[in-house]
Every structure is written in structure tokens, then in C-alpha cells.
């Protein structure tokens, strides 16, 4: 079977919007913890969708192994690093008040960074798991 036209076009059409939706979820998680996780799942979903419709090679071109494997610890580093940055600025761990002159904004920025770390880790994990699953016999 050649690559099915309808599925191909449908996927192409919707992919950027799925990704954007991921970012939307990311930045609108009520400014509290959580958004990063769903966003990570959705973002990873785009890569999985690519792999399913366009094949694994395409997915690898977009998200190579080396990148994916490093996303997990990178997210962790972002998360923990933001906390440590708080420490370095003289506040408690995970206290981001020091990130801006206005404490409330500082806190907001901190949450954003942390959530971004979560996004990176989660998407990396899910893509890595997907790769591990589909490549197990190769």
C-alpha cells in the first residue's frame, strides 16, 4: 500500500495545530503545576503521529535518538536548575521570587521555567518509550 492520501493530508493539516495546542496547554495550566505534563504528552503525540503516518525514519529525522534521550535529563536539569537558581539568589529552593524585581512576576517566571522542564522531560520520556517499543525487534 502506498501512503494513504487521506491520512497523509489529514495528518499534515492538523499537526501544527496539535503542537500549538500543546503549547497552549503548557502556558495555560492555571499557572500551577500540571500543564507541562499534558503538554508533554500532546507534543510527544505529534512525533508519534509522524512515525505512524510517515514512518519511523521520518520521525527519527525530526526527533533523533540522541536528542530524545537527552531531553529527559535536560528537563530534569531545567526543573532542578530553576530551583537551584532560586537558592543562588538567596531564597529557598523552588522559590522563584528572586527572578524578577516584582516578586509575583518572579514567581510566574519560575513556574514557567519549571513547567517547561516538565514538558521537556515528559515529551522526551514518551517519545523514548515509543521508540523503545517500536524498535524492540530491529
Amino acid at each position: 500500500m502506498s501512503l494513504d492520501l487521506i491520512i497523509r493530508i489529514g495528518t499534515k493539516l492538523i499537526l501544527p495545530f496539535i503542537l500549538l495546542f500543546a503549547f497552549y496547554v503548557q502556558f495555560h495550566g492555571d499557572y500551577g503545576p500540571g500543564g507541562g505534563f499534558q503538554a508533554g504528552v500532546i507534543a510527544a503525540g505529534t512525533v508519534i503521529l509522524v512515525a505512524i503516518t510517515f514512518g519511523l525514519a521520518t520521525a527519527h529525522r525530526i526527533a533523533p535518538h540522541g536528542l530524545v534521550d537527552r531531553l529527559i535529563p535536560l528537563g530534569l536539569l531545567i526543573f532542578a536548575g530553576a530551583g537551584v537558581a532560586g537558592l543562588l539568589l538567596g531564597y529557598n529552593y523552588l522559590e522563584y521570587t528572586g527572578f524578577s524585581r516584582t516578586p509575583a512576576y518572579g514567581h510566574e517566571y519560575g513556574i514557567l521555567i519549571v513547567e517547561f522542564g516538565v514538558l521537556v522531560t515528559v515529551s522526551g520520556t514518551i517519545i523514548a518509550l515509543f521508540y523503545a517499543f517500536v524498535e524492540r525487534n530491529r
Partner: protein
Amino acid sequence: MRYLSLAGFLFAFWLALSGHFKPMLLVLGLASTTLCVLVARRMRVADGEGHPLELLRGAVTYWPWLVREIVKSAWAVSKIILHPKLPISPTMTVVRASQKTTAGLATYANSITLTPGTITVAVSGNRLTVHALVRDNALDLEAGGMDRRVSRFEGSS
């Protein structure tokens, strides 16, 4: 151009979803949009198929027509479902698609599927294999009314 348009759509999508117009969120929205466009480029999805900018103009007339078709056939299918005898006559057929672009072809195929009572089962060249719930639906499609409508929509751009 295509990317610019995609960016426009994406940002509109963002605004609709977000509903916040605080500077920080707007900045984030723009950043996200840019990132998405970049990724789309990397994925090579925003081409004539994936972002059929050309079909935009015809959409204004085509979509309302399609909605009307959907309502009509949904009503028809409902009647069949609720009819005690379940008067179905499933039929498989092949119809010709006269669209010139793959985007147009996909529009036709999806329109068939969207309309209750008919499903595009397979696409092969410009032949669509269609499953219809009743024989009349199949014959209607064979007659090519919808095909012409989609082609006109495609051509109008």
C-alpha cells in the same frame, strides 16, 4: 507565504484558545507560533497538501453547502436507523474524482465520509472506493454532483 499564512492561522488559534491578551501571554503565543512553524518546516508538512492556502477562497461557499448536505443525509440515515425494518441496502462502488490537486481530492473524499450514509474506503489514483448505506446514495455519488461541486470549489481559487 504558506508559512506566513500558517503562522496567521496558528496565532488566531492561540488567541481563540487563550482568550487572554496580557502581554506575557501574547509573547508566549507568538513564540509558540514561531516554534510551531519551524517544526512544521522541519516536518515538511506545510506544503500544498498540508496547508492548502488556495482552497481558502472557495471555502466560503463550499462549506455551507456541505453542511446542508450533511444535515440532509443525517436525517435520512436517522430515518433508516429508526425504521422498524431497517431498510438498508449496503452498496460498494467506485466513483471518479475529477480534482486536479491532491488537496482537492482529499476534500472530496472527506466530504463523502463526512456525509452520513457514505464512506470513502479507499483512494487509488482518481478512483474512490465508496461504501454506501443505501443503494441510492451510491448512485447519487456516481452521478457526480458532489464531485463537480468540489472541483468547482477547487477551481475557484
